[in-house]
């Protein structure tokens, strides 16, 4: 069992607590008991001494009475009364024998010994125990302890009356081990009789075992009247009681209480306590384990539930608990489980769903695609991935605002969803990019779907009364032929879409050739750099003819690239590419340098042509541009009035304030500024009015159908009118036929650019064309 578990902690804690209490109790009880036992032993000795003395006294009294009884025996008195020594001696022995006296003496009133059974030779000598005799004289009998020849006797002296006192009889009872044993039995103490003389102590009688007697002889000292005494590894509490003073020295009784015996009940109690404590601990341990299990069992169950929740199982029902706290916990856990499940769903949604359209996001789509690929691989099936990118969405966002842009994105999502089958997946990958997964569809069969999607964009988008025409480019790639994983498939679809947009097609299926095309693009960058450096680029000029006087004294410079190996590369191939890579600035610089140089030549030749040059978005954000332009003008001694820079609406949107700053500085140089492709963006004339522009170029889209489309005609007419009102020159692009020229002329358009007058052509060809045009009737 680990100590970290709650059960163990509870059990260990409480059991330890109990053990601690028990140990403390045990120690306290033991200390107290030990002290009490000691005190008891000492007290027992005090009491024992009293009892002992009383016993000795009683024994003396009993003996005195016994001897008195003997002394009053008539026959005895008669024998004494005869005065015959032998008779007296035999009577003394006889009567002494009756009460087992060890010695009998008879003394006269004049204190001379008349008879002595122990020492007959003392007859006639003076009686030795005069103190005792005196006491007997006072009390009619006395007893005392005396030493005779190294033995201890209890002597009893009583008078012999006939009927008055005629002499004294002394009887002696030896105090030996037997007597000591009797006293021990009564007093409950070890009894030793000690005599003291000049030589020290001497043991007269004792109840101690022989070995301890020897030890006692060795350890005795006169200082010790009470206290502890160790004899042969046995501890005694002792007490020394003086019993008598004899001519040979005092007699003491050494009373000893065996501590082992005194402590026996205490040790018994201690044993009981230990057993009790062990039983209590065992009971406590078992009870503790049981109680702790009842607490921790449900906790373990709940921990198991929590663990399974952690593993993502949110469908558990914690077992009902009988304890309120645990039940609360279980309830909380159940709620937590629900909350976690909900939150996880929410998080999953956020993580895998595009909040704007409600469609799966890129991450989710990749997952779905991976799964679909895995399934298709398993079932030897195929699938198709479509990638859809909206055209000019950035412009929508910029000109109509993000809320509108978001609405468009959402609507596109809805339309895509409607356009595909139920089992197909539509996702928004990023910005204006969508993807569609068509499981079980070969890429070759996906054309119908692509067509269906394409048609959904035919319907215009109604947004708050505004109608928007949104177009999209689409690419398709298929498993297993185009790629083995999601990344490859998406890349292929992306390439196809890119190709479609580039080529103006609404959709395109992936073709392995595109891969090389893409690679071509990469080499193109290097080639473009080379082209700029080696002057492989050429400027073509397309005339901008004045409708007022028919003059062609303005032209738009357009860059052309003649690749040494690939031949002519259309601007649509490399300009967007240069814009993407940022290389457009080099291209623009090259174009400006050469156009200004050409215009300078023409000015110098007294044949000035006003040249228009296109600026890209990036150029507009380059604060160094005005200085470069100024430098080029100065270098080629070209008056600024013969230069016009064309910008697109969208170019202004990226960073309007910065772009405006660049425009103002350019305008300050004295050159003209034109808005290119006007009408395709969403900028209003009110906005244009704030720009330092001098010219509007109406987008060719409005011009091509002008003759047949009243709507376009109205737009063009009003644009021209408004442009004029704002003091702007209005130019129409992409004009291909004379009727259109006529209409534009009637509308008051200032200049016209288009095939109807001339294609873009090299500088010398332009000069020739201009001469021919000037010669032709207007």
């Amino acid at each position, binding site marked *: 069992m680990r100590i970290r578990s709650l059960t163990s902690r509870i059990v260990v804690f409480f059991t330890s607590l109990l053990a601690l209490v028990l140990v403390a109790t045990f120690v306290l009880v033991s200390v107290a008991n030990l002290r009490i036992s000691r005190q008891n032993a000492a007290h027992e000795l005090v009491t024992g001494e009293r009892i002992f003395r009383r016993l000795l006294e009683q024994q003396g009294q009993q003996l005195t009475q016994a001897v008195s009884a003997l002394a009053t025996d*008539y026959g005895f008195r*008669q024998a004494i009364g005869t005065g015959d020594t032998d008779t007296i001696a035999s009577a003394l022995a006889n009567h002494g024998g009756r009460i087992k006296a060890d010695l009998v003496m008879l003394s006269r009133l004049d204190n001379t010994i008349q008879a002595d059974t122990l020492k007959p030779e003392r007859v006639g000598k003076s009686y030795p125990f005069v103190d005792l005799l005196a006491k007997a004289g006072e009390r*009619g009998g006395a007893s005392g302890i005396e030493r005779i020849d190294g033995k201890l006797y209890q002597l009893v002296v009583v008078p012999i*009356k006939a009927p008055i*006192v005629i002499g004294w009889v002394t009887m002696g009872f030896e105090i030996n081990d037997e007597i000591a044993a009797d006293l021990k039995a009564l007093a409950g103490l070890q009894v030793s009789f000690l005599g003291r003389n000049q030589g020290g102590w001497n043991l007269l009688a004792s109840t101690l075992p022989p070995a301890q007697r020897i030890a006692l002889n060795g350890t005795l000292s006169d200082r010790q009247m009470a206290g502890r005494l160790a004899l042969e590894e046995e501890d005694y509490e002792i007490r020394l009681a003086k019993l008598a003073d004899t001519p040979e020295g005092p007699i003491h009784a050494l009373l000893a209480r065996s501590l082992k015996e005194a402590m026996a009940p205490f040790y018994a109690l201690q044993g009981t306590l230990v057993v009790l404590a062990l039983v209590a601990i065992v009971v406590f341990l078992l009870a503790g384990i049981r109680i702790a299990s009842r607490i921790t069992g449900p906790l373990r169950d709940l921990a198991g539930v929590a663990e399974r929740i952690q593993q993502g199982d949110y469908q558990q029902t914690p077992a009902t608990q009988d304890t309120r706290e645990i039940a609360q916990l279980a309830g909380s856990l159940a709620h937590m489980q629900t909350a976690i499940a909900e939150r996880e769903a929410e998080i999953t949604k956020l993580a895998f769903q595009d909040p704007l359209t409600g469609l799966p996001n890129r991450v989710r789509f990749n997952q779905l695609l991976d799964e679909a690929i895995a399934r298709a691989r398993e079932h030897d099936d195929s699938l198709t991935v479509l990638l859809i990118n909206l055209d000019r969405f950035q412009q929508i966002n910029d000109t109509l605002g993000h809320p509108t842009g978001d609405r468009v994105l959402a609507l596109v999502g809805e339309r895509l969803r409607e356009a595909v089958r139920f089992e197909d997946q539509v996702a928004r990958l990023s910005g204006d990019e969508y993807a569609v997964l068509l499981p079980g569809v070969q890429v070759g069969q996906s054309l119908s779907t692509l067509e269906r999607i394409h048609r959904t964009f035919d319907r215009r988008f109604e947004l708050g009364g505004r109608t928007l025409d949104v177009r999209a480019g689409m690419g398709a790639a298929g498993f297993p032929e185009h790629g083995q994983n999601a990344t490859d498939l998406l890349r292929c679809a992306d390439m196809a879409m890119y190709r479609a947009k580039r080529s103006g097609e609404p959709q395109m299926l992936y073709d392995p050739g595109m891969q090389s095309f893409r690679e071509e693009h990469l080499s193109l960058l290097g080639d473009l750099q080379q082209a700029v450096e080696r002057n492989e680029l050429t400027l073509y000029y397309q005339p901008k003819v004045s409708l007022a006087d028919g003059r062609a004294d303005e032209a738009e410079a357009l860059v052309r690239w003649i690749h040494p190996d690939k031949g002519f590369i259309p601007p649509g191939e490399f300009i967007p590419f240069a814009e993407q890579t940022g290389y457009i600035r080099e291209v623009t610089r090259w174009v400006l340098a050469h156009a200004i140089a050409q215009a300078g030549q023409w000015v110098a030749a007294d044949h000035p042509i006003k040249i228009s040059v296109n600026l890209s978005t990036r150029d507009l954000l380059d604060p160094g541009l005005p200085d470069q332009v100024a430098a080029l003008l100065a270098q080629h001694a070209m008056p600024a009035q013969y230069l016009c820079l064309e910008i697109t609406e969208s170019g202004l949107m990226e960073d309007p304030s910065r772009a405006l700053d660049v425009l103002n500085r350019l305008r300050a140089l004295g050159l003209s500024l034109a808005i290119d492709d006007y009408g395709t963006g969403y900028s209003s004339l009110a906005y244009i009015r704030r720009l330092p522009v001098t010219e509007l170029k109406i987008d060719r889209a409005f011009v091509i159908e002008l003759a047949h489309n009243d709507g376009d005609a109205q737009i063009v007419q009003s644009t021209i009118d408004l442009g004029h009102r704002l003091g702007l020159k209005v130019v129409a692009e992409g004009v291909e036929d004379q009727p259109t020229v006529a209409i534009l002329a009637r509308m008051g358009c200032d200049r016209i650019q288009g095939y109807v007058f001339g294609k873009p052509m090299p500088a010398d060809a332009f000069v020739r064309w201009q001469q021919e045009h000037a010669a032709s009737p207007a």
Partner: protein
Amino acid sequence: MMQGGLPRLLMALSSLCTLAVPVEIQVQDAAGKPLDEVVAYAEPLSAKAPKGKLSHIIDQVDKEFVPLVNVVQVGTAISFPNKDNIRHNIYSFSPPKPFDLKLYSGTPSSPVVFDKPGQVVLGCNIHDWMVSYLLIVDTPWFDKTDARGMARLGDLPAGEYELKVWHPYQASAAPAQKIKLGAGAASAFAFRLKLTPPPASGNHNY
């Protein structure tokens, strides 16, 4: 011898002529307190003592000898009537007259004759506390002091006597007084005596 002829004659005359010389003896203790029951007797030095009354009675009443102190002339027969309703024994180990009367009741048929002078202590061997002291004197002139410590020796013929007192409890014997009785001679004498009564012993109720 010649020089003493006249007084001897005079004394003889006076003894013939003046018959009665009463002798009074007072016995006190050291503190002057009169002592009773002290035996006082006069032993004639000049003549042989005549025989007096030679009978005496010592009763046994209520488990006691009565009286405690007795004095008799040598040759007196003492009877020991037992007035109790229990039997008594009477014994004596005293040298003048050791004897032992077996347990009896009533009056023994023959009294005990004490024919030697001296002290005799009488006891009863079944009642240890019973004791009686008897002084046997060789003179008929004796008496015991009364409560006032006075003893009277009756009429003594004039002559020389040795006057003695005795009590069983006496610590030591008082010195005898030699007296000469006759006309005009003193007839009152005083003794001082120290008594040490024996410790009370026994229980009379047994």
